[in-house]
């Protein structure tokens, strides 16, 4: 007789209002705020939490080497297991998945998972450009790293130049409906996006993500916990992680194999045959606007070479038939360490029907996606409004 996994429910979600600089709180104060909002949402107290799983950006990004030690008090972790997860930019997603597995395997009943970053107290561009001896410095930061892959995508698919600006214009308008989003550009127009300076040609300023301070927390629990939940839970139907080296002969930077394999695993767990038809929306990690059409193909929402056509046709708009990043996405909010968890949490908010102004009508199945490093770490989950069938 096979032992089935415990179904996992998301019963609490909390975020801080993401901004450029939260100078009024310490890092402890920042994570506390998100965690407390998640507890309030679930109507639970610290005593109800069995374990804490925390994630953050790479250590050089903000100089906090042991968050699990420094933040145990603020997160009520005394006398409980506390774990830290590392996977570069995808960390928020993999952190949630580690927490989810602890519940699914019945190690713990109720787990608090949280991810954060205070970009204002550090410098990610510096963290990505350490002066390694004997290396030739050619670039700094992530934009220059990813821009050549965007050009490769355009060449491979024949996507017209303006697709990136359509994504940015959509995500910034979606952010206006999300009170927690960092950028609220009330006067945004497509013309403004297209007129913004070219930073790493073909990537424009308005097609890149901001630097944010913020934290995101979720409370995951088992069936008993879900039954006590005051609000409708989101149920985890599938979750997976995959990784691959930063560079190897045959690596496809435009559509990495690890991303395809990760999505296929999630769909198999969730019984999804046709993601485009069966999934109502997705929160995917798009730090540079062109990554929307690229990931649409990688995740199987579009055939290879066709992702940009969905964007161009308005399919990915909030009122489109497959809304992508109704929250405004990473393009509007980027506390790097938390960005992946925000994707997972926003997917859960949608299937709980609690996304407010950026709610997608009738959302029943949603995907949360994160990637990190040199397109080498992938973490995804699929959540639904109903408990999983299998």
């Amino acid at each position, binding site marked *: 007789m096979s032992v089935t996994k415990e179904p996992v429910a998301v019963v609490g979600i909390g975020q801080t209002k993401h901004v450029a600089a939260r100078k009024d709180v310490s890092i402890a104060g920042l994570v506390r705020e998100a965690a407390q909002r998640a507890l309030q949402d679930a109507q639970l107290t610290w005593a109800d939490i069995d374990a804490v799983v925390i994630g953050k950006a790479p250590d050089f990004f903000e100089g906090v080497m042991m968050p699990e030690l420094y933040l145990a008090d*603020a997160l009520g972790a005394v006398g409980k297991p506390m774990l830290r997860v590392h996977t570069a930019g995808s960390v928020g997603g993999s952190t949630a998945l580690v927490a989810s597995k602890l519940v699914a395997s019945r190690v713990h009943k109720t787990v608090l998972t949280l991810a954060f970053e205070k970009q204002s107290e550090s410098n990610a561009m510096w963290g990505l*450009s350490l002066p390694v001896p*004997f290396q030739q410095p050619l670039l700094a930061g992530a934009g220059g790293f990813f821009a050549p892959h965007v050009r490769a995508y355009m*060449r491979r698919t024949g996507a017209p130049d303006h697709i990136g600006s359509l994504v940015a214009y959509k995500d910034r308008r979606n952010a206006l409906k999300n009170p927690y989003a960092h950028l609220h550009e009330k006067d945004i127009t497509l013309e403004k996006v297209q007129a913004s300076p070219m930073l*790493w*040609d073909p990537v424009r300023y308005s097609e890149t993500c901001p630097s944010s301070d913020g934290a995101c927390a979720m409370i995951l629990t088992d069936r008993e916990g879900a039954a006590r939940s005051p609000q409708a839970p989101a149920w985890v139907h599938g979750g997976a992680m995959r990784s691959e080296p930063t560079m190897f002969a045959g*690596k496809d930077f435009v559509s990495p194999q690890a991303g395809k394999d990760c999505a296929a695993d999630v769909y198999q767990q969730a019984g999804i045959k046709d993601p485009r038809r069966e999934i109502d929306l997705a929160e995917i990690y798009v730090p540079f606007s062109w990554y929307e059409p690229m990931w649409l193909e990688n995740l199987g929402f579009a055939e290879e070479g066709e992702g940009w056509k969905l964007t161009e046709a308005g399919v990915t708009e909030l009122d489109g038939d497959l809304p992508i990043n109704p929250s405004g996405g990473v393009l509007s909010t980027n506390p790097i360490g938390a960005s992946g968890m925000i994707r997972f949490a926003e997917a859960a908010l949608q299937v709980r029907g609690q996304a407010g102004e950026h709610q997608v009508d009738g959302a029943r199945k949603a995907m949360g996606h994160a990637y990190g490093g040199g397109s080498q770490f992938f973490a995804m989950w699929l959540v639904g409004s109903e408990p999983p069938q299998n």
Partner: protein
Amino acid sequence: MPELLKAPLVVEFPFTRSLGPVQSAFLTGLRERTVLGVKTSDDKILVPPVEYDPVTADELRDLVEVGATGTVTTWAWNPEHRRGQPLGKPFAWILVKLDGADTALLHALDVDGPDAVHTGMRVRIRWAEERTGAITDIACFEPYDGDEASEATPHDGEFEDKVSGIVAPARLDYMYSPGRAASAYITSVAERKMVGERCPSCSKVYIPPRGACPTCGVATREEVEVGPSGTVTTFCIVNVKAKNLDIELPYVYAHIALDGADLALHGRIAGIPYDQVRMGLRVEPVWTEGGRYPDHYRPTGEPDADYDTYKELV
């Protein structure tokens, strides 16, 4: 076997930290020669203060003032002074429970030798002459022969011109070695030869070599000279000035598949207007006197490579 390269690598950054209400009061207090602690739900006095109760997780905000004198609860002799440590000479690390506090604070004790320190000894704060709102406002502790004095008294934590943030510089000193394969590569590049390594299992030629094939997980030993010419597989035009990078803008950052290599390396393209660089452009390295790497790559003048010949390398 070529020389294994080694060089120091210093990683340092002036991280900033917002203090939040409790640490802000504590550090501002030190500037004003006042030591503050915080009272927990069960009336314990924690010095240094924390924002959240280590036992109950409650938010803690009730500040109290404690004494500038205290008792050593344990200690360790620090025989050799290191960069960034207090006092500029050997000293004792002490945990000191200030009068009125229930927990101990870590700091330095100025005494001549380990024989002059013992658990239970009485000490007092020696304040720094110039104080800025930092733990170093306590220059150190020194021996003191008075009895235990003050009880903790309530304090509102209010001061003029409160410190709200600090700079917390971090520095790590490494001795860096790129390892055998990269050392050999770097040495040969400096001699203007591009030498990669072939995987014995999948036959792919890696440049720069890493000493192992990331796909097959086996060591690579066979050296293969590639290039020097190659094909631009993709690129971006950089308009952003990076700190410590002295390259005139705009410039072209390209992925270049050297002839015979199975993945692209990265280089700068020049000798052609930046807006005329294209995928498939044939290029060759340009060396400058004493340069460890090619300064840049320039067009060879050959016809562009057909997309199908390099698309697997993009």
